[in-house]
């Protein structure tokens, strides 16, 4: 189980960061763990032990086996986690400037990364599920990190409720597969699962994946999760957490496609994408826009997976990790420079070269400007789509998508053009992290075709690329005209926007319906729980009364005990004689 060692540094730093005396050391310890992890992942890449199995325990005739795998998919995911976690920790060392918070923060973020790495090496559903639960729990802690804010606590609660629903769904899927196959290793499942039971299990697992990746109808928690510290968002939205759902669907893809889950993946992805872009365009919260953009990206990945193209999804997966991490880091810088203002209409951007270049790199990659990674990822997804209706919807979505992301960039800049102030003075570690990730974004865009055999990457047709760029330009032009030059007055703009978000009304109505059904189910469960509680309470009282009755047998007199002993002995003899 060589692969398990990759989890160790972050586990250690998680413990150490909590125990260490000085709060200044907590950050460096986590950072060191991150660097060691990167080293370990590199070492594993060079000395790949492949798939390894370990019998966890044997229950009856069936051994429960833990399997770890280091296929290309796993190892790249591991590398992304190690890199982004380290960068986020570096960034946090500057961002988290309240000393008393550092112990808990770095400890929690280390455990989060450790759970994520455990998830990333899993090749059986048990390991995956353990990692899945760990990140769910750690994200609950991190989202609600600022406990003194009521909104943060509520957001954490909302997240954990949605995630627990997902856990339950996934667990049901796992249980169904276990009943059918008595083995939970992915390879075995893919080879042997079939029939209705397997389809039901696949449905449950897909639903679980959709909750983690914040897809419709489970997407609400992610936008509320913005209440956590910005570096946490940078981690949650890039390499970890939301990626867990996509990754689960990726490693199980042959099984899911065989079980007929393709259309469901596409449908969920498509609805999520539409909901996300519309909401992103009408939102004014700087981090919320990025959160909707994450939902959009995840939706695109699910669409690609639904069409069976693992590599297209993975290409976007790779680049999305980097550019979304960078975008959140930039957002963190911007808000920190503006005294934690989150409204883009009030934020003031900077045009200083050192600031604006990483921002532009991030936005350009996110939007998908040609030589940068986002372009390849999104164009690969477009090329994977083989249905014209879906393709047409995606084209429209891309216009809106490019509109909102340039709006995200341009509105603060136009504010600056008006107010003219610029107050950037952030800690060096934040700047360093931003630069390194920017370099990562650019470098990955340049070298990706040469990684591990270019022939295996998905084809990107020239036509798709060109169409995509066209849509991008349309969106940019609209955005520039509307938000930077402000061709339309703000009030008019708002009315247009409200009309635009009318599109989302049916979706929101549907969502309301889902919530209504869920709350009805909830109150039914509540009712049931009340009866259950009553039963338990009555039983409890019964037991306590029996307990009092039994207590009379415990009066401490030897005579009585002897009598009971002999009565028992006689009873035993009589019973045996009767048999």
């Amino acid at each position, binding site marked *: 189980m060589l692969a398990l060692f990759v989890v160790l540094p972050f586990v250690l730093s998680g413990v150490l960061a909590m125990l260490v005396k000085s709060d200044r050391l907590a950050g460096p310890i986590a950072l060191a763990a991150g660097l060691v992890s990167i080293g370990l992942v590199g070492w594993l890449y060079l000395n790949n032990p492949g798939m390894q199995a370990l019998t*966890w325990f*044997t229950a*009856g005739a069936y051994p429960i086996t833990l399997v770890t795998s280091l296929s290309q998919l796993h190892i790249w995911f591991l590398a992304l986690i190690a890199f982004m976690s380290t960068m986020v920790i570096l960034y946090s060392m500057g961002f988290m400037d309240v000393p008393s918070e550092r112990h808990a923060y770095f400890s929690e973020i280390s455990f989060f990364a450790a759970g994520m790495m455990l998830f990333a090496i899993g090749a059986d559903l048990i390991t995956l599920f353990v990692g899945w639960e760990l990140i769910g729990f750690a994200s609950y802690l991190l989202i609600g990190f600022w406990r003194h804010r009521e909104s943060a606590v509520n957001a954490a609660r909302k997240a954990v409720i949605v995630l627990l629903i997902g856990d339950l769904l996934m667990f049901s899927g796992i249980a169904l597969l276990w009943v059918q196959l008595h083995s939970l290793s992915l390879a075995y499942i893919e080879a042997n699962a079939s029939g209705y039971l397997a389809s039901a299990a696949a449905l449950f697992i897909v639903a679980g994946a959709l909750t983690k990746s914040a897809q419709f109808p489970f997407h609400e928690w992610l936008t509320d999760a913005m209440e956590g510290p910005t570096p946490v968002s940078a981690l949650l939205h890039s390499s970890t957490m939301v990626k867990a759902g996509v990754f689960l669907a990726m490693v199980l893809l042959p099984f899911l496609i065989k079980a007929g889950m393709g259309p469901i993946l596409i449908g969920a992805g498509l609805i999520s994408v539409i909901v996300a872009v519309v909401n992103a365009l009408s939102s004014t919260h700087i981090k919320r826009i990025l959160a909707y953009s994450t939902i959009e990206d995840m939706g695109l990945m699910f669409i690609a997976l639904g069409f069976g193209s693992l590599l297209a999804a993975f290409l976007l997966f790779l680049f999305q990790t980097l550019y979304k991490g960078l975008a959140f880091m930039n957002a963190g810088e911007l808000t920190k420079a503006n005294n934690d203002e989150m409204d883009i209409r009030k934020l003031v951007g900077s045009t200083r070269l050192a600031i604006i270049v990483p921002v532009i790199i991030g936005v350009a990659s996110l939007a998908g400007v040609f030589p940068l990674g986002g372009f390849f990822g999104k164009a690969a997804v477009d090329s994977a789509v083989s249905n014209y209706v879906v393709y047409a919807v995606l084209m429209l979505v891309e216009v809106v998508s490019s509109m909102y992301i340039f709006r995200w960039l341009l509105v603060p800049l136009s504010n600056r053009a008006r107010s003219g102030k610029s107050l950037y003075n952030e800690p060096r570690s934040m700047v360093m992290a931003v630069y390194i990730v920017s370099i990562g974004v650019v470098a990955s865009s340049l070298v990706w075709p040469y990684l591990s055999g270019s022939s295996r990457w998905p084809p990107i047709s020239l036509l798709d690329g060109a169409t995509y760029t066209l849509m991008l330009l349309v969106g940019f032009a609209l955005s520039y005209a509307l938000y930077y030059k402000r061709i339309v007055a703000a009030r008019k703009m708002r009315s247009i926007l409200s009309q635009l978000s009318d599109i989302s009304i049916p979706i929101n109505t549907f969502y309301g319906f889902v919530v209504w059904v869920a709350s009805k189910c909830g109150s039914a469960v509540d009712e049931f729980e009340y009866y259950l509680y009553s039963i338990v309470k009555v039983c409890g009282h019964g*037991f306590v009364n029996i307990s009092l009755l*039994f207590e009379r047998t415990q009066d401490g007199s*030897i005579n009585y005990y002897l009598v009971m002993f002999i009565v028992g002995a006689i009873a035993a003899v009589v*019973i045996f004689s009767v048999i």
Partner: protein
Amino acid sequence: MIIEQLAMLLVLLPFAVMILSSCVAIRSKSRRLALWGSLAGVLIAAFGATIVMDLGLSIPLLGYLTVTPLSAFFLFLASSGTALVEILAFRYSEQFQEFAFFMSLSFIGMFLIAAAQSLLPIIIGFELMTVSTAFMMLVHGRKRAEAAIKLFIFGSLAIAVFAFATALILQYNPSLSLSAIPQYLGYIAMVSLALFLVALGFETASFPFNLWIPDVYQGAPAFVTAALAGINKKIAFLALIEVLFFVFTAYFTSFYRIVEVLAIVTMLFGNILALKQKNLKRLFAYSSISQAGYILVGIAVGTHAGLTASLFYIFAHSFMIIGVFAIVGFLESHGINTVDDCNSLYSRNAFIAVSLTLIMLSMAGIPGLVGFFGKFILFTSAISAGMYWLAVIGVLNSFISIYYYARIVNASFQRKNERTILIDRYVQMVVVFALAIIITFGVFPQPLISMASAAASFIP
């Protein structure tokens, strides 16, 4: 051959070391000598047991005894348990040399039962264990006398019943060896089986032969209670297995129902009485009774899987209960005797509160701790043998037990209290060891499962 002789030496050497060192220690009034002598002895024994288990040896001794991996499993359990108890006693006993002497005698008794190839060593072993445990209590002053006398009286009664049961089958088994007696022997064999069950029901603390247990556990010093609950009762399970599955193996269809009923009533008795219990020591006495019921589940199932599960749970519970009584004894020495006294324990001593919580969660069967896997494989073995009700009642009992464990956990994490308690390093050592076992095998139980499974395959 050389390895076997060496292993035999390793198995026998400890007794010489322990007895001699404690005798010399009593003369020279040296507590340290007694401790190091006993520890050296049990460590050699544990080492020997490990070798026997590792190589799968069967070493015959004196015709009446054979050290097999099954006995080595229990020998390992007994020796590590004894080591922990000795450390506790070294800290809390005023009469440690005498205690060590009687503990060594008791350890010999355990060895005799573990290695028995005949019913005689079992009788002698129980006598040694009962008498020396009673003396372990007696040397700690007159106020322990009640508990000691109770243990002694019931112990001798049980041994008498055991001897009588042995006598009944003497004509079918003149050598008294642990070999199967033929089926269809009629009433005599049945009565003998019934009496064996009574005697061993006493030794393993199953209902209705266990009414004296809470009194004794409460009255004895905590470290003696730890030895009683953690080692003596566990060795008694081996004696039960030896009698039922070696001698009466042909009668399985007659006795498994009875054992099943014993398991159910024992679980219920322990759990229900623990519900209203205020005194910590008594609460854990009831809790250990209910845990004995879980172990009986595997014996009632009787398959290889069931016995493996039983052995697993015996091992797990032994360390859990020793850890618990280490903590309870520590708390007692600081005037914390009841559940209400546990209030704000966390702010007074975080280590103790957290370890107690972990051990109790393990007993209740929370995943990630060894108790969960113990119960899991116990109940799966019951289900795969078709004993659904047994499994259902077992799971329900786990729920009941959560209630009283939760009361303690709830109390310990409440409010602030500035009167901190300083941790004692001997207690800490014992608790850390127990926790290490609980967590290691809780996260990764396979080594213990295969050990128990290898040991269980020596049961016919």
